[in-house]
């Protein structure tokens, strides 16, 4: 009884410590990172995102985005993954003046899943970058943006 109670206490402390650590990192991230959202090259954006970690192309991230955009002003995107330890999910549009569209810190309470609606300035590769402890995983898809002259 005593032993199990001690074990319970230890686990609780361990968990809350982890909780605090996570919470701190999330607060740090809550400061909007203006440098990440400056107009700039795709390469510079990627460099900032990867933080020196190696990047690996994967089929474990599913990027659901239309091949042909209805209108570049609103392109629905959904990213899901079977990878377990994703901390951070970013969406990058190669040809946009500001390539980084969104960077989401996802706590363990969430499944690796994110839906959003993007602006695409022109036909472009769209990347989903998932950051884990040691490695960043990436997947890309090309989206064609046509000149929306008419339609409706």
């Amino acid at each position, binding site marked *: 009884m005593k032993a199990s109670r001690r074990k319970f206490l230890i686990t609780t402390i361990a968990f809350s410590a982890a909780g605090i650590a996570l919470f701190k990192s999330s607060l740090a991230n809550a400061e909007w990172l203006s440098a990440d959202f400056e107009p700039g090259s795709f390469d510079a954006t990627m460099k900032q995102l990867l933080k020196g970690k190696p990047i690996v192309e994967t089929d474990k991230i599913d990027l659901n985005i239309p091949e042909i955009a209805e*209108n570049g002003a609103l392109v629905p995107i959904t990213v899901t993954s079977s990878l377990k330890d994703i901390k951070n999910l970013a969406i990058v549009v190669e040809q946009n003046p500001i390539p980084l569209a969104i960077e989401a810190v996802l706590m363990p309470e969430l499944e690796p899943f994110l839906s959003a609606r993007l602006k695409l300035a022109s036909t472009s590769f769209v990347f989903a970058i998932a950051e884990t402890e040691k490695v960043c995983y990436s997947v890309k898809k090309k989206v064609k943006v046509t000149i929306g002259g008419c339609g409706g």
Partner: protein
Amino acid sequence: MLITVFQMLTYPKKLARLIISIPLLGKLSFIISFLIALPLYAAPEQDQAAFRKHYQERFPQLKLTDYANGVYAIDSIAKQSWLAIEEFPPYETAIDQGKKLFMTAFTNGKHYADCFPKGSAVANEYPKWGKIQGEVITLAKAINDCRVSQHEPTLPYEKGEMISLLAYLAFTSRDKPIGIAIPKDDPRALAAYEQGKAFYYQRHGQLNFSCATCHVQNAGKKLRSEILSASLGHTSNWPTYRLKWGEMGGLHRRFSECLTQTKAEPFAEQSVEFRNLEYFLSYMGNGVPISGPSTRK
């Protein structure tokens, strides 16, 4: 000549081709004789049957109700992202605002419901022929007529409160089939319909396009990168959050845009020309369910 006119009425495609092929003076006299001859040879019922037959032949896979989805009924790639947007569509705020406005009392204590005794779910009944006014009453006009009768200032037609009200009325009318009547006891109603019809088939602007050029004869074909939608059901999905506008707008704003795109002079929203056009087009779409408000590209 009579036989030709009759054929033309059933085959607007041929009519348009013929109109281009004859020289200007001939063209004018042809159009005039066509307009005069029209009420004699085609009742609205016949027009409607011919109009539908054209689309049935072109899109045999579509049911009448499918036309409420506009171009997405025939463009499967575009339909995917459209459905993703409709999951949580940007027009929802307008529905909420419209509901609030509809429920809010005027200064005299009365409500919109005093003008619309059947409630808000009446979008499928408009435009109506206003026998007293002697003109076509669109839903937007009915809203402003209501305001005037309650001593309230009219609302601008293009955006804001008017569009939100229309969004709410359309939302509560969803799935109700469009049911437009052209009363036989008032020849002015038929004349308004005929004017709308003439506008629809008449070529406009520097590009010399009619509404029918794109949306009847070339429906389903590509204009640059876009698939042209069918006219059938064109009045079912309003108001619309059009991605190109980045906001909600009404059917007449789209009419204006179509005219501008074909390099023609647009008319004002709720002008007689546009109301008559809406009357004709809505009558053609009788039976198509109301799907507004909606999102379009």
